[in-house]
């Protein structure tokens, strides 16, 4: 058994200094050491006694946390006046201090200005207790509804995929909390038995409902109705019960990409990538197991030579950007020392980038893919290549007009390089920004890079001033989240009949019960539209830009690109 636990049993008593300090605080001057010792022993004993009684109240209050109320009740049991004025907060901010070889925990008492308390408006009345019913199980099977936890928790999916040897059936690992001495031998036997019994657990049959759901969702995702698609993606991104369908979705996406790349069907590729994004967004899914199918599909969408029928007109660049972002995200979440996703992906991109024969489209994809991986990657892999790429672009721009397509490609690569490199250069390169020096360092792109860097620096400075102010006004950018929540329950409710519906799972989750969930302001999207269309006046654009940069840095980044690509599609 754990030795530390034994250690804890040794009786700890309060230091005699505390006794002295307390005695002084009540006006007893010199207390003898002996009486201090006797006092501290007595007090320690009484405190322990009270704590033990308070635990009873905690158990009967069906809580795991001891509250000050429990201690009050325990004092009452001993016929002692409770300590008034203490409230149970969720978090009691004990502060820690050490010095002179002593450690001290103390509770910082702030002086409270009464007028502040009087003048502050009353807090919102907390919501009243209410009762909600849901099915925990139907004929022995737990339905996958938002009210129930996901069938296979994410942590377990993770351990399943990363440490397959440790995978144990839920419930088997909990071998009761008591282990008496001498059971050691038998428990080893039990474990042996368990291993014998272990079978591959995941059944790959889907229930009829799941099959229907799968059909509906996939159809909606690649169908023509945008509203349905949004709903379907919403469901993929939030539904807790999709674990069993994950293999199907993954195959669907990988096969879909394979077919549509050949057919150059840009719209479908976009839809499929959005599905990937939604799957990755789902907090209950762990995709590790399916990366072997998903990564090739995503990489295809980044670097494929051709993704659309009319490369000169269609905005396949947005798809590449989006896929590159997905790639970067999965690198961030799933890359480990064993699978080395990030380094493998980086290698792939770099190899293509170094190849002279690489097409502009692929080149663009590689750069985008690398750039999304972060500033370090840009610094080490892209910036040194700037002069080479610059020369190549110059050759296309200034040289004889070979084809319009190449020119567009070179143009896009140029702007991509400038966009990503500018901020990195702005951060790493010391002032001043001299055009000539830039030219010497970066070749053809130097001039433009210089102006971009100047702009980036200015913007950074400007943002530093204003961001604080703007964030104050936009303290609730969350609503986008709440919309997704309510959308979820609506969609799941319609899907799973026979279920007592809880209108909004949000009431369950919200930390501030008083706040009604506001519908998301769809305005954000229009703001993005306005800026991208460039219709607003410069004054507005500047303000909007702030919003956009703020919003883009948060959530609906992809919306921007898809709006853009959709509008270009329509054109």
């Amino acid at each position, binding site marked *: 058994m754990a030795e530390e636990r034994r250690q804890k049993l040794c009786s700890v008593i309060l230091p005699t200094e505390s006794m002295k300090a307390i005695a002084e605080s009540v006006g007893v001057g010199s207390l003898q050491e002996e009486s201090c010792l006797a006092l501290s022993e007595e007090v320690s004993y009484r405190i322990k006694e009270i704590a033990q009684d308070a635990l009873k109240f905690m158990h009967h209050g*069906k809580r795991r946390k001891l509250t000050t109320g429990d201690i009050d009740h325990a004092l009452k049991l001993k016929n002692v006046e409770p300590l008034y004025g203490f409230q149970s907060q969720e978090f009691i901010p004990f502060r820690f201090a050490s010095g002179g070889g002593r450690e001290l925990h103390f509770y910082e008492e702030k002086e409270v200005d009464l007028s502040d308390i009087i003048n502050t408006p009353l807090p919102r009345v907390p919501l009243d207790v209410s009762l909600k019913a849901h099915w925990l199980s139907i004929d022995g099977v737990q339905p996958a509804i938002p009210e129930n936890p996901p069938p296979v928790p994410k942590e377990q999916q993770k351990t399943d995929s990363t440490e397959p040897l440790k995978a144990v059936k839920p419930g088997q690992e909990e071998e009761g909390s008591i282990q008496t001495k001498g059971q050691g031998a038998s428990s080893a036997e039990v474990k042996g038995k368990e291993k014998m019994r272990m079978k591959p657990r995941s059944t790959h049959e889907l229930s009829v409902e799941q099959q229907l759901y799968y059909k509906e969702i996939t159809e909606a995702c690649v169908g023509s109705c945008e509203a349905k698609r949004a709903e379907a993606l919403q469901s993929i991104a939030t539904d807790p019960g999709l674990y069993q369908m994950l293999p199907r979705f993954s195959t669907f996406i990988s096969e879909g990409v394979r077919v549509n790349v050949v057919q150059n069907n840009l719209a479908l590729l976009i839809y499929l990538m959005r599905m990937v994004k939604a799957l990755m967004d789902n907090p209950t899914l762990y995709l590790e197991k399916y990366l072997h199918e998903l990564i090739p599909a995503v990489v295809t969408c980044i670097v494929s030579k051709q993704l659309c029928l009319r490369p000169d007109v269609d905005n396949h660049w947005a798809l590449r950007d989006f896929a590159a972002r997905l790639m970067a995200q999965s690198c961030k979440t799933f890359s480990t020392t064993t699978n080395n996703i990030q380094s493998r992906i980086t290698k792939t991109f770099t190899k293509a980038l170094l190849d002279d024969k690489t097409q502009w489209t692929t080149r663009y994809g590689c750069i985008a893919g690398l750039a999304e991986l972060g500033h370090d990657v840009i610094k080490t892999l892209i910036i040194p290549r700037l002069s080479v790429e610059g020369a190549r672009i110059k050759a296309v721009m200034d040289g004889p007009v070979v084809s319009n397509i190449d020119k567009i490609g070179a143009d896009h690569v140029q702007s991509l390089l400038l966009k990503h490199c500018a901020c990195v250069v702005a951060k790493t390169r010391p002032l001043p920004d001299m055009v000539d020096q830039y030219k010497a360092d970066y070749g053809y792109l130097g001039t433009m890079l210089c102006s971009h860097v100047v702009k980036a620096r200015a913007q950074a400075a400007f943002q530093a001033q204003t961001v604080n102010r703007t964030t104050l006004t936009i303290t609730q950018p969350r609503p986008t989240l709440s919309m997704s929540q309510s959308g979820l329950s609506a969609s799941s409710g319609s899907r799973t009949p026979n279920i007592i519906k809880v209108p909004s799972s949000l009431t369950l989750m919200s930390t501030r019960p008083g706040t009604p969930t506001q519908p998301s302001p769809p305005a954000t999207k229009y703001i993005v539209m306005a800026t991208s269309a460039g219709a607003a006046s410069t004054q507005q654009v500047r303000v909007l830009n702030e919003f956009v940069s703020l919003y883009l840095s948060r959530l609906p980044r992809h919306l921007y690109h898809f709006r853009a690509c959709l509008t270009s599609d329509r054109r």
Partner: protein
Amino acid sequence: MAAVQDGPMELDAEKETKPEILSDGTSNLSGNTASGTLSSSPLTAAPAGGAPKMEDQQTLIAVLQFLKRNKLSESVEILRREAGLGEHQEDSQATDGSGGGKGDGDGGDANSLLSRVFITSAAAPQSMLVKKDQPDVSVVLSAYSQQGDPPLYQVYYSGLKNFIESVLDCHRAELSQLFYPLFVHMYLELVYNNHETKAKAFFDKFSGDQECYYQDDLRILCGLTKKEHLKGNEVLLDFRTSRFVLRISRDSYQLLKRHLQERHNNQIWNIIQEHLYIDIFDGMPRSKSQIDSMSGSLAGEARREVNKAKVFYGLLKEPEIEVPLDDEDDEAENEEGKPKKKKTKKDSLGSKSKKQDPNAPQQNRIPLPELKDSDKLDKIMYMKESTKRIRLGPENLPSICFYTFLNAFQGLTAVDFTDDSSLLAGGFADSTVRVWSVTPKKLRKVKSTAELNVIDKESDDVLERIMDEKTASESKILHGHSGPVYGVSFSPDRNYLLSSSEDGTVRLWSLQTFTCLVGYKGHNYPVWDTQFSPFGYYFVSGGHDRVARLWATDHYQPLRIFAGHLADVTCTQFHPNSNYVATGSTDRTVRLWDVLNGNCVRILTGHKGPIHSLAFSPNGKFLASGSTDGRVLLWDIGHGLMIGELKGHTDTIYALKFSRDGEILASGSMDNTVRLWDSMKAFDEVETDDFTATTGHIHLPDNSQELLLGMYHSKSTPVTHLHFTRRNLLLAAGAYNSQ
């Protein structure tokens, strides 16, 4: 006991209750004899003839002295008259503590005295408790004054340890049981004799050897370092007053005895003689696992003879219900075209009422309330519903509907459903009780008296007319308690609701007017649980004062006091035939009490933590109990045997319920899961041959995983209550915990 701190106050309460209890004092007798012997010093337990009488007299005198000191002269008079004690005698007794010749002189009629004395003491249970305080504590503690050489304690203990470790395996397991009680007594002896540092060293050296399920007690023990601490500590006082019971085979015992005599290890031998009760049995020594499954309680295992009393665990005959009512209802059914149903129903009705279970108590063993017309209607409803009941089994698991309490910031502490699952009550830490209607039918109050006067009492729908439509709502709040509400229970007829609270009262609420009708006072300390009898009228409550009380709704004083638990009574449950009450306690035992005479008829040990839930199987044969250690234990009531252990939960089990047919046991826990167990299989697999039945030594199959039929996680919602509807749908309830 708990009453130690404020004697005078308790005493007043006692005076009030006295006349009431006297009327049925005989029935209380044995319940209190238990506490009587318990309170008297361990010396009493010696089987010699003269000693106990003398001791009782001493006890009596102690009571008299106490009463005198508190100037309760009337009580003194009464007691003296009844006990036949002269004033001089008492005085002389008081002066020379040994008792001397005068006590023996009265010894002739001491026997007849004894019975009377006990009735008196039964009539004044509180005074018994109080008496425990001053005179008795010193008697109890004085056992320690004969001290050995303190530094030798460690030598003694480790000597015994070495010996036990060197004996044959089969004996070692049995003798290892000695470690814990010896350790505690030796430590306390050291503390009592003011060898503080030595006690500490002793504790540090050997506390690590103790079984891990004693950790909680050891934690209390390690705080005790002064003689003064011993006086106030109830847990330790119990350890002193009750002898720790060990079950050891004759061979092992003799081995031990020989060893101790050879070594002249009198210190340990004295402790064994004075503070332990060794229950010797003939036959094979028990194995480690057998011992482990039974040990763990505060005072060791139950003595075998304690569980020998006959328990009538069968069910009562179903009352016969008039045919016309039945037919009427059947006609309604027939319209739906179910002629067959009638037959099956008749059969089930008939078979139940005609066959008399040999294990059932007599129908009138406990006077039960007569059925009212509304009860009969309800019975008919019940019959009808039960025909539609789903047969559950391993292949056919119940559906579970979970009622989540949202925004219960004030802390949900107790939940109950009515038997027909139409109402739900929740007790909260903010002292309120809330009642919800979970059917579309709203809750309505009865109209005020003024309005009731104008109602035509002859009309057919008078019952409908008396209700006030304006008050219809889905839930009602009941205010009245002044502390957290720890227990709620609906009466079977859905007219009343009971709630028990930290403020020491049990309240009876009317669900017609939604007002408080009675506040039952008596516990004075927090009341942890209360439960209505399955036939209504009676109810039981248990609390921090270590007793469970049986009440009738129309008496404001308890009818029975079940005393014997060594720590808080945490949960209570009525047997389906209403003749017995089961209580679970922090002393880690479950006790079964006979309602008729207040006797403790079963002591079930084996839990390693405080017990927080109890459930009887519908046939009355089995009991399930769940504790903080996350295990459910199954008991055969007839034999008083543990017959199963269900492991799996990782936290306290707060809810247990058998399905209506007893096939499935559902358990709900703090670990946010509901688990379903195959109780039929658990009961069937037990080998109860004669040998195990007589010795009580069971081999528990370790098959929890096979018995576990289903486990359902909730989202951060601990399960507080479980209930099977009449059609075997499982309802669960708990408060969402947003962390």
